[in-house]
């Protein structure tokens, strides 16, 4: 208190409403069949958490991907635009079935590349990509996704670098390409949560029981300016 006894009530800054665009990339190939319902339930839980967090203005996008590199995988991808209709999003999610995809690797890099190219809101928005898969990725992007020689994981990493306020939340097996992705995000001071599950985990416990708390916490934080728009000479 000051010498005169006049005292102003302690202020607390009001919670600032944050903005988040969230893309869910879900491996919907046949090998995910034992856990796809568990993954869906996990996403329902997460979306419920978002709904109860009144201070997040969010949009949702679904990318159910399969294997573009395998000509025998005839099942189409399911790629939505962003929506702020939770009912519409959950209905689309509910319709996803695990099928197709013959060999061990899937087109995960392609799914990430498409997610990065989303129609994000530009102003102060958490650009969030959530990835679920039980498989390794093909090492290169399919020509229908990106048709230039630099089509490996580094292409996807560079695309990530162009996004401001990006977050990556992924639950997947421990393969080198995913580790490289994680490392690059950490090196670039980007937000990432990587939950690595054992390869060939027949019980799929890691993919079924996801802890969403870190992601919800990140989404609740206000966006900071950490980048520059002026090129170095």
């Amino acid at each position, binding site marked *: 208190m*000051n010498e005169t006894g006049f005292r*102003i009530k*302690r*202020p607390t800054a009001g919670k600032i409403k944050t903005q988040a665009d969230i893309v869910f990339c879900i491996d919907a190939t046949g090998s995910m069949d034992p856990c796809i319902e568990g993954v869906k339930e996990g996403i329902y839980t997460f979306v419920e958490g978002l709904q109860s967090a009144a201070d997040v203005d969010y949009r949702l996008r679904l990318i159910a991907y399969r294997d573009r590199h395998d000509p025998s995988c005839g099942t189409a991808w399911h790629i939505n635009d962003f929506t702020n209709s939770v009912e519409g999003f959950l209905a689309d999610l509910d319709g996803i079935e695990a099928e197709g995809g013959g060999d061990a690797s899937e087109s995960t890099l392609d799914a990430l590349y498409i997610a990065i190219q989303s129609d994000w809101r530009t102003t*102060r928005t958490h650009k969030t990509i959530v990835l679920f898969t039980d498989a390794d990725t093909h090492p290169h992007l399919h020509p229908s996704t990106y048709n230039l020689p630099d089509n490996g994981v580094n292409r996807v990493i560079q695309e990530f670098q162009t996004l*401001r306020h990006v977050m990556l939340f992924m639950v997947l097996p421990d393969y080198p390409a995913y580790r490289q992705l994680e490392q690059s995000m950490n090196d*670039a001071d980007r937000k990432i949560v990587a939950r690595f599950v054992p390869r060939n985990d027949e019980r799929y416990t890691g993919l079924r029981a996801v802890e969403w708390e870190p992601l919800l916490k990140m989404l609740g934080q206000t966006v900071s300016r950490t*980048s520059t*728009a002026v090129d170095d000479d």
Partner: protein
Amino acid sequence: MMIRRITYWTSVSASQTGTRESNEDFIAIRTLQYGIWRLKLLIVCDGVGGRPEGGACAVAVGEAVISTVQNYLENRKSKLTLSGKETERIARKLLALSINDLARQSACTLAVALVYPKLLGRRWATMVFWAGDSRVYELQEDSGALRLLTNDHSDQEGRLTSYYAGDGRVKGHLSWLYRDGPIPPAAVCVTTDGVHDHCQTEEIRHFLFYCMSESLRTNERLSQELSEFLSLNISDNFSFGLYYRRLTEPHLRTLASDLEED
């Protein structure tokens, strides 16, 4: 004989890591002597994330700015207090700082305010220099309004359009302003975006008046109060420097009459 009222000032500053792993901010409040005069320098630099050595860049730029201003003051020939015309001269010296051994790709913002009495205290002046989105605010002594003296150098997506690079040079541009008046400001503060992007301007004003009504004098106390003030929105490093006048109770009551008393 006219008796001039003595003005008492207090300066405090705080900087915290927030949810980040390291603090890449630099903040300082220094008293600089020139001839028989003194001025108060408030400075904050915010290291840019995603680039190397952001924190080291902030420290190097901050110290170099203080040193540059000090050198300017020591070498000027006039025995009078700083004039408005000298703002640009100082700015030109700040455009290229002497910094060695830093990665050129490192980057930081700058906001610096020089507050000082002129003409034996009959007028008060403030010089402000900035690059990037760190800010200087002034709490006006007559109205109690909080005035932002800087404008952010950033684009719609929040990317900085001006900043200091690790070689000590400004990328984009350095802005400056000079203002003086017959009465000193009630307070001057500097902030990084970890503060002003995480609360409303009116809330900063409320916080300033709270600090003044509490006669806050230690950095530790300010740090604690700042944490509580921003508690709902902390997601970055945050730094805050405050230089305020100790006003009389009636004066403070008048200026903060819209704020709830405890």
